[in-house]
């Protein structure tokens, strides 16, 4: 991938993010776009793990939950500054990921899926049961976040915060993939034995990317909590994990823009389908199944191949 093209796609994304406020009619649409951006950043981190490194995680919502509840609990119960709480949440999520990753990544395929699934479920259960701190199944309110007297409030302000974060994440992810670290990661996906023989310590790389994706999931959990102003255990549950994996798969594994498209689609679809009253889950499911049957590689890689890029999407 040439340096020029690297900037083209990012500039396009920046332009879209800049111009979007001109066509968003009201806060309802801002809200949807903000949720899309949050999901896209989490899906991007997850895609590094699933699509690029070839490892599965069915428990990522657990890390989002850790971030969200750190941002809810630490300022409310212990008077921490929200930014410090956010950092603490990310540190806790990363530590848990690092400690669990060593034994977990000895496993492969369905065993790895089960291990990460179990991890996610345990985190969700802890959040539900520690009602004294978390408010239990009812959830709890989250203090607003700000810096030096300036408080982020309202959809428009949150939009700019997330647009900047999204742009930064995509830039960083692109850089990562096109670096020695990123190539080692993709190499161990392509052939573990070849990667090892070339000097790649594969366990270290799997652990590192798992920790990184947990770190970003936790940060976005904190952002979600502050943005909504309220947090419930649903944020950490299994269905949320599956939703995120679906975004990655539908958009396209090992495709950065696939994560964005997947997140946009899966966030917008339930809204667009609300006219189907009660049948929306059925329609939603049918659309996803159709996508997977006709585009098993995901939307972005399939379309990129169709428009003649040698079957290989530029990552």
């Amino acid at each position: 991938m040439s340096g020029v093209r690297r900037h083209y796609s990012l500039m396009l994304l920046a332009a879209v993010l800049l111009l979007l406020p001109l066509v968003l009619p009201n806060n309802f649409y801002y809200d949807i776009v903000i949720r899309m951006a949050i999901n896209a950043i989490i899906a991007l981190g997850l895609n590094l793990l699933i699509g690029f490194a070839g490892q599965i995680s069915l428990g990522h919502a657990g890390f989002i939950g850790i971030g969200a509840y750190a941002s809810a609990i630490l300022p409310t119960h212990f008077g921490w500054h929200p930014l410090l709480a956010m950092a603490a949440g990310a540190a806790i999520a990363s530590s848990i990921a690092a400690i669990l990753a060593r034994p977990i990544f000895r496993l492969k395929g369905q065993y790895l899926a089960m291990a990460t699934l179990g991890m996610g479920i345990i985190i969700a259960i802890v959040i539900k049961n520690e009602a004294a701190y978390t408010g239990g199944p009812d959830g709890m309110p989250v203090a607003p976040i700000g810096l030096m007297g300036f408080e982020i409030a309202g959809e428009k302000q949150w939009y700019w915060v997330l647009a900047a974060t999204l742009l930064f994440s995509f830039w960083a992810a692109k850089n990562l993939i096109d670096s020695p670290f990123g190539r080692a990661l993709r190499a161990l996906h392509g052939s573990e034995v070849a990667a090892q023989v070339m000097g790649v310590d594969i366990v270290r790389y799997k652990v590192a990317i798992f920790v990184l994706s947990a770190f970003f999931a936790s940060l976005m959990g904190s952002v979600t909590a502050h943005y909504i102003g309220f947090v419930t255990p649903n944020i950490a549950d299994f269905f949320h994990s599956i939703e995120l994996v679906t975004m990655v798969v539908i958009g396209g594994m090992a495709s950065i823009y696939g994560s964005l498209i997947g997140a946009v689609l899966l966030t917008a679809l339930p809204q667009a389908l609300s006219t189907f009253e009660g049948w929306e889950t059925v329609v939603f499911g049918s659309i996803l199944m159709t996508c997977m049957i006709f585009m098993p590689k995901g939307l972005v890689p399939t379309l990129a191949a169709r428009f003649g890029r040698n079957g290989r999407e530029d990552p």
Partner: protein
Amino acid sequence: MALLEVDNLSKAFGGVKAVQDVSFAVERGLVYSVIGPNGAGKTTLFNLITGIYTPSEGDIRLEGQSIAGIAPHALALKGMARTFQNLQVCMNMTALENVMVGAHLQLDRNLVKAMLRFPGLARRDRELRDEARELMRFVGLESYWNLGASSMPYGALKRLEIARALAAKPQILFLDEPAAGLNSRETAEIDELVRKVADNNVTVVLVEHDMKMVMNISDRILVLDYGKKLTEGTAREVRENPDVIAAYLGSNV
């Protein structure tokens, strides 16, 4: 001191003794070949030396240091590189990127610097891109440099593995049947390539079925049969050894 010394090496899989009590030494700068009938234990021997398997018994020394049982990624640090009989090319990457992975250990692998694209790292990556392209030219794959590995033909992938291994700047290179599945013209090209590699001061250890190629390019040859060392010597010595003839053609004595 020989570059690589193998002492009384054995490997058993359950009751099957794939390699039994094999000893040999490879001098620096030679092309050293391992031959033998199917199932003689050639690839197992390679997998033992390159750390894919752990030996049941015996020792392997590189520059006098024991390397038996060391993980493959740690062996790469000691200047060991290899190719595979059944291709191990990363099909999710381009041909050029595959070669670039070969240089993994010479690069800055820091995660944060990579994400923020530190100037030094980006510059080294650009240089590496040129070096990798040069290597692809060296193995005769220049026209494929921009292609995804998955769209390359079999013969080209064989050479891509050699380019990737060379990117590691190894002192010793293990080639596991580089000519397997190739036609005679392609085999001759590999033959020439191996010679070119050896001329660049890389010690080459070769497992190969193609006798003509082996006899042509090898300085010394080790013959294995049923996991045991049958004989070892120059091409002429091996060709004239009655045990070797018996193992390959069957003996009616």
